[in-house]
Structures are given as C-alpha cells and as structure tokens.
C-alpha cells in the first residue's frame, strides 16, 4: 500500500490536486479520517431473528441436563458437593446441615452451582464439555460485576476475553470474505453481527433468565446483575471520569479526601470490596447495568470460559454455530454520502473508463409517478442499475448499487485467503494469503 502524507493531502492548498491523475492519488491512507468516514457511512440494519432449532425454554423441568436431582438427595452426593466446592462458607455449611438432617427434603435455590437445575440445563443445552467445563465457571459467567464487584467472582475478566475473541473472529471472517469492505462498514457490520444487541438476543435464545434485584441466595442459574437506577442516564459515568481527577487535585492541595462513601454515593459494602491500593480508586465500579449489556456480557463470558476450559478449537466451533450461522444482510448497512464521486474516484484509481449514467428505460415522464431506470456504464460494461422517480434519484441509486457491487466483491473459494486465526487453531496448517484490496478512496 502506498501512503501519502496526511498533512499534504488534507491541507486546503493541495485539495485540488486530489482530482488529478497524480501518482498514488486516491489510495487509501488508513490514518486519513476523510477516507474512512466521509463518503461511506454505516447504518444499523433491521435485525432478523434467525431460524433456530427448538430449544427447551428456561426452567424446563423435563430437561435437567445431566444433573440428576435425586442424587443430591442422598448422603454421598451431598458429601460430593462439599468436596467439589472447596471453600466452605457459612451458607454452604447451613445447606450441608439441612441436607444431613432433613434427608430427601427439597433443596432451596441458592448460589450453589451444583444444585441449580437451571444451570445444569443451560450447560447441557449449550453442549458444553461435561468433563472440561465445570458448572462453577458457568455460574461465574452469570454473575455480573454490578452484582459482585470482586473480579475473582464476577464475569468481567471472562467477558473481556470473550469480547476480544468474538470481535477478532467476526472481523477476520468479514474481511476475508469481503476484502473490500470500508472501515466504517466493517465496524458497523461487526457490531450488527455480534454486538451487544445481538448477543443479548442470543443469551435469551439460549434460555438464560435473569433474577430481579438478586440477593446472595439467588439461583445460580439466573443472570445476576444490579439494575440501573430509574432516570440514571450516564450509568457508566457515575464517578468514573471525575473521581481520579478530583482526588489528585485534592491531594496536591494537601487537603484530606472526602470519605469514599460520600463522594461516590456508594454503600459501605461496595467501598470495602474495592482495592484501596489502586491509584485510580473506585474507577471501575459500576453500580447498575442495563439489561441488554448484562446479557451480552454473560454471553461473552461463556465464550471466554469455553476458550479457557476447552481450548480455541472448541470455542471457534461454538462461535461458528452460534454467531456465524446468523443471517446478516450486509448490503443494507451501506449509506453513501457522495456515491457518484466515490465511483468516479474508484474508476480513476483502477484505470476503468469514467462511469457514465445511461437511461435504460422510463415510463410516465410527464405523469405524477414517473419511473426511470438508469444504468451506470464504464465503457460498455454495466456496473449497476437503479430505478427512481426522478432522473437524479435513479442516477444516484445506480451509482450506489455499482459501489455496493464493488465493495461487496467476494472472491470465490479457489482464490479466497485463509482466515488468519487458522494457524492459531492448528499450528501445523498451511496458510494461504488471499485477495488484498488497495483500500478505500479519498474523496
């Protein structure tokens, strides 16, 4: 790729030079803001729910996964539970004693991963590995950081890992399949394919249900998170950005800091959990989380957890089955600001004949509802066709369709490159590079 000096290109004195057939004019510079954002703009397409196989609904009592509830009722199973849990807290001892004393009494739901039918059912429904993927990790995936601020207990680390995996695999898939996608479109496509909205729907489809205002004894199979307070718009910013600045300023002035509780409006419990040695203080504490985001984080955490327990290969299979299998209409994402100019620039860069709009057919020119059908030609090759109620509309739509055809070019399997992550899953595999585009044009 040839790179131009950005300051040279974008300075007003040199703008007129862009139109000329100068060497390397119109070649993408990744750092150029205008190339990335000005002419193409992504819109969120309407999402269509995919057709999916039947899945048992949440709490379906006919589906216990492989958790056989009767086993828990006898003594040996109860002992097994104790051994697997490891650290024994007060609650666990209570449960243990209840089990010992009451025998086959029904178990009350509490944060005990091994006694939750919902959790076991979810584990089975997702087809997670019985031997490698423990139920405790799945329970951890369902605990949001707003429920428990301790990062050792909540899903924040797992969800961060899952987020990176999903983002990386989705973008590499899209770029390998459609190597000419502009950056704005790619970003929007990734979030339409596997963004928070989609992952929320996915979590619902998996049958994850959430607890309303959960306490510590909530069923481990429920998604647990703190609600955003009514009317709280900047839920993410509650003291996130202000806090470190104020603190430094106060320290520089030699003043004593306010008690954390007062400053943050947090309860004592939340303050105690935060690490006081951390310079940034309580920066990352979020008190409430929107439902959609809590679901998305849980789903991402499941991806991260599969990666840790079952390895990358299994995670990729899971990713293919749950995310890449979804229908996504890429052509609906495009929205061009200057389609005709963009098309001319592409034609000039690639050495095509300049595109000319030609009137293919028309009907009712002098009526209230005329229809014009215009095709954009380069030489005698038709690049795109568009219909509209005015000549201008048809001409612009034709240019838009030609641009979509250009950007949505997908090389056939025989010349398509391998996914870069292929060699990560199998280090001995051979990697074949694919079609690389010159990049976006500068308008």
């Amino acid at each position, binding site marked *: 790729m040839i790179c131009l000096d950005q300051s040279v290109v974008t300075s*007003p*004195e040199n*703008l*007129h030079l862009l*139109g*000329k057939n100068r060497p390397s004019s119109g070649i993408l510079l990744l750092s150029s803001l205008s190339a990335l954002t000005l002419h193409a*703009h992504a*819109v969120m*397409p*309407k999402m269509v729910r995919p057709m999916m196989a039947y899945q048992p609904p949440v709490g379906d009592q006919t589906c216990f996964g492989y958790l056989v509830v009767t086993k828990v009722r006898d003594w040996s199973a109860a002992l097994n539970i104790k051994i697997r849990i490891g650290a024994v807290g007060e609650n666990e001892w209570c449960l243990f004693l209840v089990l010992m004393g009451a025998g086959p009494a029904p178990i009350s739901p509490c944060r005990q991963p091994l006694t939750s039918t919902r959790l076991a059912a979810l584990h089975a429904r997702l087809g997670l590995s019985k031997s490698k993927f423990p139920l405790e990790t799945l329970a951890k995936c369902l605990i949001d950081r707003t429920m428990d601020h301790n990062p050792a207990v909540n899903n924040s680390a797992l969800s961060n890992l899952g987020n990176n995996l999903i983002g990386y695999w989705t973008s590499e898939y899209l770029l390998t399949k459609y190597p000419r996608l502009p950056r704005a479109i790619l970003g929007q496509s990734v979030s339409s394919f596997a963004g928070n909205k989609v992952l929320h729907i996915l979590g619902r489809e998996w049958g994850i249900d959430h607890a309303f205002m959960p306490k510590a004894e909530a069923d481990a199979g429920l998604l647990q998170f703190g609600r955003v307070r009514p009317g709280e718009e900047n839920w993410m910013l509650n003291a996130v950005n202000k806090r470190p600045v104020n603190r430094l300023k106060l320290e520089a002035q030699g003043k004593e800091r306010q008690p954390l509780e007062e400053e943050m409006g947090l309860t004592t419990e939340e303050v105690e959990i935060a690490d006081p040695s951390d310079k940034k203080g309580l920066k990352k504490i979020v008190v409430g989380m929107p439902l959609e985001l809590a679901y998305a984080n849980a789903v991402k955490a499941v991806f991260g957890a599969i990666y840790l327990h079952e390895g990358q290969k299994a995670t990729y299979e899971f990713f293919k089955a749950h995310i890449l299998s979804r229908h996504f209409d890429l*052509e*609906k994402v*495009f*929205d*061009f*600001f200057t*389609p005709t100019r963009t098309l001319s620039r592409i034609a000039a860069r690639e050495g*095509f004949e*300049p595109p*000319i*709009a*030609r*009137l*293919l057919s028309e009907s009712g020119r002098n009526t209230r509802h005329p229809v014009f059908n*215009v*095709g954009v*030609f*380069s030489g*005698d*090759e*038709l*690049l*795109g*066709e*568009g*219909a*509209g109620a005015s*000549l201008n*509309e*048809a*001409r*612009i*739509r034709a240019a*838009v*369709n*030609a641009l*979509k*055809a*250009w950007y*949505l*070019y*997908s*090389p*056939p399997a*025989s*010349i398509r490159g391998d996914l870069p992550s292929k060699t990560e899953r199998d280090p001995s595999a051979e990697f074949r590079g694919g*079609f690389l585009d010159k990049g976006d044009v500068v308008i």
Partner: protein
Amino acid sequence: MSLLTPHLRPALRQALAPFTPARYESTTRRMTKKLRLPPAASFRLDASSPAGTHIIYNPPPTAASVKQTPALFMAANDPRRALSLNTPSLPLAEGQELPPPVRKPYEKKYHLKPEDFAKIRELRKADPVTNTRKALAEQFGCSPFFIGMVAEATKEHKIEMHFKQKKMMKRWGRIRTKARAEKAKRKAGWGGADGL
C-alpha cells in the same frame, strides 16, 4: 417561429391525430375488456412446450443483485472473469448503440495553473457576493464544485448566507415547508439508508 421547431412537434402531432380517448372507455364493460391483457408469451402453451407437468420460469423484472459482481470489478485471477454469466451486462446486438446518457458526458480539462488558483482564492476572498462559485466557474471554465474545492467561502459569508436562507424559508407556507421537508427526507435515503 416555424411550426416545425422541435419543441412544437409533439403538440402539432397531437392536434392532427384523429380523436381517440386514451385513458378510459365510456362503459365498465368496454373498460374491463380494454384492460384485459393477453398472458405472457412464456405462459402460453405451444407445440414446443413439454407434454407433462412442468415449471414455467417467468420472474418479474427486477434490478440485478449487488452480489453479482461485474467482471470489471473482479480480481485479475478470478476464474469467474472468463464466464460472462456473472455479469449483469446488456445484450447489445451487432451495431446497436448504448442507451443515451442521462447527462451530457464531458472531459476534464485540467487547464488551470497554480497562479489561477491563487487568483480564484483572491477574488473569492475579496468579494464573495459578486464572485460566487457560479460566476468564477464561468470565468475560469471549470465547475462550481471545483471552485468550492479551491476557494471555500469565508466563515462570515457562510453565516450570512445561512441567515439569508433562513429568512427566505420563513416566508414559505405550511404546504411548501412540509413538501420540502419530505423531499429532503426522501433524498437522504437515496445513498442506501432507506434500504431500497
């Protein structure tokens, strides 16, 4: 002015043609009969049609899908380049010309020198009211868009023009205001945002 000037010809033809009511018939029966269309050629059975049950493929006319990449846009080593199947090309008969262009095609001249750019900027800065984009474009033989690229109007002039336009828009009535707003909305979707 002669009656045979081009813009009068259709009117003349209409005046001389025998009277035929084009839009409707006087009775429902005649109108229905008039609107009755013969079936499409592909639906009609003839001697060459298959004898048994068969599928007739006659899709409605639609624009080509953007997933069909024109051969020109394909990579040099794309095997589909050789097959013209994937190209939405027009079947042009021997000697047939391409359809007429929507706008008159023009060649870019690239005739302006750096001194001209300096002069354009100077003129535009000195008096943006007289030296509009259009006036300068005529003077220098280029497009108004190009003038805008070379010498943008000053900020003050832009603000002034903005308020002038606002003042003019205030005089619009309810119907025109609504029509303009709707037109702008429709136009905003042409780039692909309307999903058509």
